[in-house]
């Protein structure tokens, strides 16, 4: 049988597919009908994944830089140079080295990279590529539910009576989850979208509220206040299952109602009605973007509390669901790819956890939390050497600092322009060329089996990391990725019951999988339990970004929607590249989307060049005139090289606000 079951590795949905593998090559793909998440569907990316897997743009041999040029070498030599350089700097100061891991790597690969950083090179400077926005969602959910992951279930979308979609273009970002929501809507669920932009799911929703940029938090807080004022909370649930409600109620009582409509840009009555619908629904789910662009932690906390006070957490068909944009973003956090976390969200500050790892690994682990590479690069430290794995974006920030480093190693399957800055390049097998597990946005750990041999001589990631560790003097001795998972299970309570043997022939297991939940956990559950969970702490500042006469337009930065435009994997395909680059072809210098009213005021038409001026800098782009943005808001796609490497670096603090990030600007004709 030439069709081999596997998992799509583009986004965090984790759809099932069958790959057509013949004579050592991938010749096509087909959706898996019985897969519990995707149920026989794939999106434009998934349907064309063979183009990526058949690309010739793979790294085929280890490379080492000599006199400025990358030259072919052996694994042995390249690994030697890598270990010498990292050891040299680690010996001087473990703060001088850092690891930039990939949210595309398998759990086993990321676990070993994490172990390599901590146990072998004694640094906690390990972080994820592609902006760790998911962390904010995990912090909120973990603090309250104890589960650092989606509290609801993708498989229960059809059981939700009310679905709130906030700030996520879900039919583009995670199309199959978008499909599931759309189908639930067709079957009678109430779908409400709250977004600054008029997205496809907004048009498919029963109600769409186009809010002003930066006002998501007030929207959520106001709806909470409506529940409070109109006695629409679930008092029995609050009493039985929650703590800290009074504190939260006290904060939302401070929200002044008079200017809610002005601040949010939607009539207060509309928000009232949505709040009532949420309260009256038997079950409800919230979906928002997590990862490339997510909300700030306070907004997430408000969403969470809103659902908690209405009793929409902990039961079938309900839950708060952050959606990851990249295939193993959830799994990467599960594997402790963060400066302050070990696996399964066990903090470095937890001495017992550190002790457990130290004993298992037979080493003393560095005690203080590390810093992320980007923190270090932007002036927080002096990184001298780093290891980068499968950089996902084809645009690199902080190039000057990276160029100044003493040593950069690049590890990956696909060619990437990060190689231009690397002193050593080490190829690893792609996900179809080695066994590995991937954890989707719904906590589903799925096993992807090896389907074909890697290009001649290319090692799988787990073998390469073992080789590096052993060269540095450690004794690892893993025989297979399955053995790595055994170690993960020993060290990680949520993965305790997971093994390759158990995953084989299944569509995955949703963690936590342990003695209490041997078959895994469909959702965070409170039914039949006496457990009490706390409301998330929130602050009471309800400011919204203000425009001024000088800078009258609020500029939104669309990261998630355009994430795939400059994605390294997408660039290795033909059809998905063509589809995602359509906008780039029309607007080669990037575009800023403005409303027809603003376009008239500025005196421009579609594709006219404009200058965008903020208090900190300016850039030029073309204008796209569209009714998808409201008047006095503008939207800029986050996929153009100059914007990212120059203009936005000046606005780094603003960008930290993720989906809510806005910059007041003036747009002028040039």
């Amino acid at each position, binding site marked *: *049988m030439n*069709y081999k079951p596997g998992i799509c590795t583009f986004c965090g949905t984790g759809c099932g597919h069958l790959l057509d593998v013949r004579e050592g090559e991938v010749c096509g793909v087909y*959706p898996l*009908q019985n897969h519990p998440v995707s149920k*026989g*569907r*794939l999106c434009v990316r998934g349907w064309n994944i063979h183009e990526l897997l058949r690309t010739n743009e793979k790294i085929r041999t280890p490379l080492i830089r000599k006199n400025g040029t990358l030259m072919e070498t052996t694994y042995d030599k390249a690994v030697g140079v890598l270990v010498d350089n990292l050891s040299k700097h680690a010996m001087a100061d473990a703060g001088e080295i850092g690891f930039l891991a990939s949210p595309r790597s398998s759990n086993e690969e990321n676990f070993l990279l994490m172990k390599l950083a901590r146990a072998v090179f004694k640094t906690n400077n390990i972080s994820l590529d592609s902006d760790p926005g998911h962390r904010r969602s995990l912090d909120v959910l973990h603090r309250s539910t104890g589960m650092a992951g989606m509290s609801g279930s993708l498989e229960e979308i059809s059981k939700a009576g009310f679905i709130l979609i906030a700030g996520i273009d879900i039919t583009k970002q995670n199309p199959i989850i978008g499909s599931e929501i759309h189908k639930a809507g067709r079957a009678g669920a109430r779908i409400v979208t709250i977004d600054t932009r008029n997205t496809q799911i907004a048009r498919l929703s029963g109600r769409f509220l186009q809010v002003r940029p930066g006002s998501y938090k007030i929207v959520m807080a106001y709806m909470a206040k409506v529940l409070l004022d109109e006695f629409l909370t679930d008092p029995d649930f609050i009493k039985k299952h929650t703590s800290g409600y009074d504190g939260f109620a006290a904060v939302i009582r401070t929200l002044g109602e008079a200017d809610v409509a002005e601040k949010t840009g939607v009539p207060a009555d509309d928000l009232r009605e949505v709040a009532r619908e949420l309260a009256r629904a038997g079950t409800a789910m919230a979906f928002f973007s997590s990862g490339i662009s997510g909300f700030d932690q306070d907004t997430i906390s408000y969403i969470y509390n809103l659902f908690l006070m209405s009793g929409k957490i902990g039961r079938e068909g309900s839950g708060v669901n952050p959606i990851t944009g990249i295939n193993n973003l959830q799994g990467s956090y599960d594997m402790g790819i963060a400066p302050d976390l070990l696996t399964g969200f066990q903090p470095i500050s937890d001495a017992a956890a550190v002790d457990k790892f130290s004993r298992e690994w037979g080493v003393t682990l560095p005690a203080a939390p590390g810093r992320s590479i980007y923190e270090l690069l932007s002036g927080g430290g002096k990184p001298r050497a780093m290891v980068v794995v499968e950089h996902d974006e084809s645009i690199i920030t902080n190039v000057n600092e990276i160029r100044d480093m003493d040593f950069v190693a690049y590890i990956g399957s696909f060619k990437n322009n990060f190689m231009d800055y690397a002193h050593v390049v080490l190829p690893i097998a792609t996900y179809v060329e080695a066994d590995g597990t991937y954890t989707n946005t719904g906590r589903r750990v799925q096993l992807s089996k090896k389907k074909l041999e890697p290009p001649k001589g290319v090692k799988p990631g787990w073998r390469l990391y073992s080789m590096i560790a052993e060269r540095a003097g450690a004794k690892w001795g893993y025989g297979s990725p399955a053995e790595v998972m055994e170690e993960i299970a020993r060290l990680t309570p949520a993965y305790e019951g997971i093994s390759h043997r158990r995953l084989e022939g299944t569509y995955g297991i949703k963690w936590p999988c342990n003695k209490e939940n041997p078959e895994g956990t469909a959702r965070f559950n409170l039914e039949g339990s006496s457990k009490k969970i706390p409301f998330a702490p929130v602050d009471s500042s309800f400011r919204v970004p203000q425009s001024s006469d000088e800078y009258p337009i609020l500029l939104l930065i669309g990261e998630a929607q355009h994430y795939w435009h400059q994605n390294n994997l997408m660039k290795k395909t*033909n*059809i998905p590249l063509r*589809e995602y680059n359509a906008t780039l072809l029309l607007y080669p210098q990037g575009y800023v989307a403005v409303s027809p009213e603003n376009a008239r005021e500025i005196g421009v038409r579609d594709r006219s060049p404009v200058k965008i001026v903020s208090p900190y800098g300016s850039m030029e782009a073309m204008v796209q005139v569209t009714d998808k943005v409201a008047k006095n808001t503008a939207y800029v796609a986050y996929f153009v090289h100059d914007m990212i490497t120059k203009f936005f670096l000046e606005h780094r603090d603003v960008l930290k606000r993720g989906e809510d990030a806005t910059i007041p600007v003036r747009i002028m004709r040039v």
Partner: protein
Amino acid sequence: MYIIKKGQVSRIAKELQKDYRMYGPVLEPETQQVMFTRVDDAADIDLGLPLPANPVKSAVFPHFERIMSYVYDRQDGKVDIKPDFDDAPKALFGIRPCDLTGILCLDRFFLGQEFVDEVYRNHRKNIFIVSQTCTEPFAQCFCVCTDSGPGAREGYDLNLTDLGGEYLVEAGSEKGKRLAEKLSLPKSDDSHMREKEKRIDRAVSLFGSIAKENKAWISRVVNRVTTGLIDEKVWEYIGSQCLECGACTYVCPTCSCFNIAEQGTGEDAADRMRTWDSCAYEGYSRMAGGHNPRKPVEDRRNKRFFCKLSYSQSKKYLRPGCVGCGRCAWVCPGDIGLPNVVTYIRREIQK
């Protein structure tokens, strides 16, 4: 016409395997999904399986294939071009009438017009088709609305009909007849043909109780689709639900659009790859210079159903472009498979 005992039917496949690369419906063991694909051993083919998830077209029109490779010699300024056609003899065993009809549509598109597609012609020229009558419909079937089942009428070399303990074997070509004679199959008589007719009638009668998922009264919409006299709002409604994944075209037995891309294999060498393409994609209809005559998604959806249901297109295929297999309804994330589209157009007509 001939008869073969039920337990003996694999003899036909085994005989074909001597001269042909075998394709048929097989069960993927881990996921229990039925796929129509190449098999190393004809014994893996199971005629009793439901309609394969994928269309049979991938055997003659693969999802992704190399059709040519070339090397440029800089010194001589010469290009060495090697066409890479797959003309291996292939036997498609146990295909359903809807999929067979799909291949006939592809034949007319790729071979039956002024331009003949060499890649397809090579795939197609040494094909042996063994079709089988559907004696019971499946849940998603609506071939009775599209005149492509439950029995096959043309295009096969051999056609099998399960008559209970035995199969009726009908030869549709000289090639088929020769094979039946070679296997010394006993001749059938009129009673067998009458039994086949009875079983087809019974299959049709079962659509009401079994084939419940889809209905598509296509004859009612052909006129409107042809003239284009459909309220734009209907297309906007359909377009608004399209996620632009391309699945409907990829699974459609009659969809024939493809893309060509060059894949570099060295400094001065490349492979020319051909891959399925879809009118659902915006880039598909974009022209050089950036103009796109079908930029809004509803215009692209409109185009697809013109291909499937218009009279103008039917003249090329000599039948409607839909064969009633129901796969587009399976795979569509927007729930706008062809049966639903027909329903929406009909609703507008009623108004």
